[in-house]
Structure formats: structure tokens, C-alpha cells
């Protein structure tokens, strides 16, 4: 009996020691000494940057589209929320949808996007970069839409054959500003949605194709 108790205690001590120095814990310790949030939060799947602008932020993703409306990328309660990828998306999808708050008065993760309604701003900010797993994916804007809040077409993610090209044409044809770039069914795209206040009850929806 004493032998059994001894073996049990010995095994417990060895195991607890092993767990203390296991890989996961080491990673957390290392991450806490860095500024790279993505090492701390596995919900962070990459970064988004608009060239020549202030927008350069993390993209999160979880199992729904509500959580990051009021949580930041540190998973703290934050009414400004975070920039996040649609929960239905996989990184390899041909269309990715990204959401984030705009604000009428204060600061918000995607407030910068409102500038795209100005043609001059657009001309010098056409490029969006996504950094995913150290790969920088470059995109060029081809559509800027202002849509009513009861129009859900831009959230479409399931496509059957010619549906995808139809959808791309819909995005392009309804662009607020006429952009002269071509688009076809082989293009991979991102669509970014934030709120728009003029006119009221609308979304600003920006779509860009992979270069």
C-alpha cells in the first residue's frame, strides 16, 4: 500500500513539473513580453492595413458576428469593438467579409473608411494589405457602395457556378464611385463593412480584389 502511495505521489510531482515547463505556458510567457497580440490571442487571424493611412490593425475571428462588436482584440469589453472576419469565412475562401465599427462622433476601428467617399482620397488609397500567417496579400479597391441596412446582398458567401460572377458584377455596378478596374470570376476579393451616417441607416461597403 505504501508503495502505491509513493508511486502516485512521485508521478504527480513529475507531471506537475512537466506541465509547468510545457510549450503552451512558455509561449504565453514569451508573448507577455512582446507587443504582438496575435501570440496572445488565437482569435487573431491577421492584420489589415490601408497603405498611406492610419488603418493598420488586427483582424479577429470567432464563432459569431456579435462578440467583436463589443470586445477588442485583447478580448476585453470595449464598445468600439474590433475589426473581425465573418464567422462563416475560412481564410482560403474566394470572398472574405470583414466588419468593424464606425462612429459618428468618437473614434472607431473603421472610421477611416468614411474617407473613401471622397474621390481624391480614394485615388491615393486604393491598396489594402492583409497579412495572414506572415503572407502579405495585396488587394485593390474596385467598389465602394452605400447600401440600405435592409440590403444584405453584400453578406453573400455561398455561390453556385455563375452566381459568383453575378455577385462581383453586382458589387461593381452599385459602386458609389466609378472605378475602372476589370473583375472576373477568378478574382479573390475582400468586402469590408462599416456603418455610414449620411444617409442615415446605411452601411459603407468597400470591396477590393486580390492583385
Amino acid at each position: 500500500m505504501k508503495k502505491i502511495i509513493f508511486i502516485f505521489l512521485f508521478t504527480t510531482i513529475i507531471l506537475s513539473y512537466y506541465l509547468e515547463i510545457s510549450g503552451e505556458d512558455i509561449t504565453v510567457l514569451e508573448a507577455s513580453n512582446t507587443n504582438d497580440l496575435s501570440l496572445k490571442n488565437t482569435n487573431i487571424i491577421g492584420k489589415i492595413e490601408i497603405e498611406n493611412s492610419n488603418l493598420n490593425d488586427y483582424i479577429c475571428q470567432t464563432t459569431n458576428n456579435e462578440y467583436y462588436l463589443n470586445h477588442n482584440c485583447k478580448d476585453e469589453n470595449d464598445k468600439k469593438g474590433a475589426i473581425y472576419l465573418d464567422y462563416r469565412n475560412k481564410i482560403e475562401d474566394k470572398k472574405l467579409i470583414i466588419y468593424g465599427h464606425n462612429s459618428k462622433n468618437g473614434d472607431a476601428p473603421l472610421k477611416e473608411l468614411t474617407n473613401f467617399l471622397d474621390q481624391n482620397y480614394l485615388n491615393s488609397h486604393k491598396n489594402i494589405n492583409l497579412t495572414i500567417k506572415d503572407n502579405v496579400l495585396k488587394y485593390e479597391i474596385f467598389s465602394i457602395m452605400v447600401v440600405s441596412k435592409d440590403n444584405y446582398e453584400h453578406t453573400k458567401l455561398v455561390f453556385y457556378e455563375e452566381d459568383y460572377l453575378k455577385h462581383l458584377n453586382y458589387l461593381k455596378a452599385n459602386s458609389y464611385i466609378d472605378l475602372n478596374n476589370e473583375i472576373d470570376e477568378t478574382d479573390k476579393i475582400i468586402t469590408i463593412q462599416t456603418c455610414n451616417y449620411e444617409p442615415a441607416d446605411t452601411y459603407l461597403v468597400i470591396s477590393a480584389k486580390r492583385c
Partner: protein
Amino acid sequence: MKKIFLIILTFLLFTSVHAKENNQKIIRNYQSDELLEEVFELKDEHGKIKTINIKIAIPEDYNKDQVIISPSIFKTLNHFKRFDKDTHINFNLEIINNSSINYFYKKDSLLITTEDLKLFDSNNNYKTTGAKSFTGEDILNIYLPYRTKNSALNSLYQNQNYKIDNNSLNNVLTKQGYLGVSELDKFYLDFYNTKYNLEEKFLDDFPLFIKKEILEGEISDIKESNNNLIEFAYNYFYSNIYAFGFSEDVLSDNTSKKLSIKNHYLNKIKEEYFKNIFKKIDSNTTNSIQNMQLYTNKTLMTNAFKDYNYYAHLEFILEKEENVLKEQGMIIPPDTGI
């Protein structure tokens, strides 16, 4: 020889299966008792009903995936014989969504057709006749047209005073080389082909004025018992006389064929229109369809349809918003404004 027999058997089996597939019976959906339906009738100075306002309320605690809208007033219109045959009634339908769910119109769910005739015989006294409607259903013996003393029978009896019961007709028709009442339709086909120098194969192929001529004339208490003629009269009624329209339609004797119940059923002629006028109904809001119309064509009405039982069925389905969007690969977008 065995091989030939086998091939023929296989062919017959295939065609019979194929025929069954084409003859699938119509599926009607009926409004749930959970919905509250109120009906307000507006009469003209002669006491005749001209407008019916229908209010259907989806209750507060309703949370099913679908709402079937099928106003029960349609089923009772003719049942109580409250309307003359030369009728033009307007319907306004208001739907009040007291639930917490947004509902969308379900694509292709608008169904305008005839009603299930069995519903109106609570004693189940009906018998099948063997005649079939264009919906694939039996035309029951309690829904038959009158046999008329039309120009063909007048000619057969040489305009003398005559009876049109089966015995009398069997006698004269057999003398003419027909099998009797069971070939009355064939006699009509031959008679009108000769009269108008035509070579049609079916009564339904005749021009409208001949079809009307077949169903016109004096009546007694004899209802038709020839199945082809029962089907012919049924088709004539629902293809030409009984019509349904929405507010964009001008219903008249000239348009009733185009807007006939049969055309609605077979060709879904109002699906595009309807899905544009009734896209959705949000929680705690009201949506309405104004000025629907039921119409009977006076010019084409004949004695054969005196006391004829006829009914229209209207239904459409509303589907939970999130289910409809999911089917289309869409979602309700997150509200990205602060």
C-alpha cells in the same frame, strides 16, 4: 418472341411510371388556427358585397419557421352562394406581424388555384366520377355542370320537344352509330367539326365560341355524366370564366382568360409581381396587399354553370428571415455603428 414481350413490358412499365410522375396531385397548405383572421364586408346600395377587407394577425408568441397565409374567406365565397355569377369582388389583405420575428416571402410559394372540393362536403357524400381536373384531382359528383340542350342536341332531335336524360340520349345516339352517352363528347366533336368545317381531335381544341355553344342552351335537372364533358366544362370554367387579379390587373370579360385560375395555377403568372410587392414583413409591422380581385366573365357564362360549385384557393408562405438568407448564402449584417 420472349425478348419482344420483355421490351414491350419494360416500355409499358416506364410509360406508366412516367404518367404517374406527370399526374402528381397538387399540395395545398392551409392557414394555422394560431393566426387570427378578421373579415369585414362592404356592400353596395343593393346589399351586394363589393369589397372584403381581411386582417390576419400573427400572434406575439408565434415563432415558427413558416407562416402560411391562406385567407379562409376564399373557401366560403361560393359555398354559401352569397355572390352572383357576374361578380367582381375586391379583396384587401392586411397582415399584422405581432411576433418578434421578421418574415420574408418564400419564393415560388404563391399558389392560386381551385379549392379542394372535398372540403365542402362535410358528410362525405361525394363520389368520384372518373373525371380529373387540371390539378390532377377527381371532379366529384357533387360538382357537375348541367347538360344543356345545345345546338348539337337540337339538331339530333330536330328541334322537337325532347328529354336529355341518359335513356333518351342513349337511344338516339346508338341510332347514329355512337355507343350512347359515353360517346356524347365524340358526337359533339363530330357535329361541330362538320358544322364549322374543322378537323379538331378534342373539344378543348375548338375556338371559344364553339366551346360556349356546346355549353349553352336550355337545361332541366339533368347533370352531365359523360366524363370527358365534365372535364371539358371544368376546364372551360376555370380557363375562361373564373379569374383572379392583383391591383395592376384590369379584370374584364376581355382579360379573364389571361387571368384565369387555370392560367395562374399552371403558369404561375403572378410570381414575379407578387415577390416584388410583398417582399417581407418585419416584427411589429404591418404589410398589405390591396385590391386583389375575383371575377366571373358574364359573356362566357352559360346555363351549364347554374348553381355550379366553384372555389378559388389563394395561399403564400412567409419564411423566417434568417432561414431565407441562409438559403441564399446571406446573413443579417452585424450593426457596425456606435
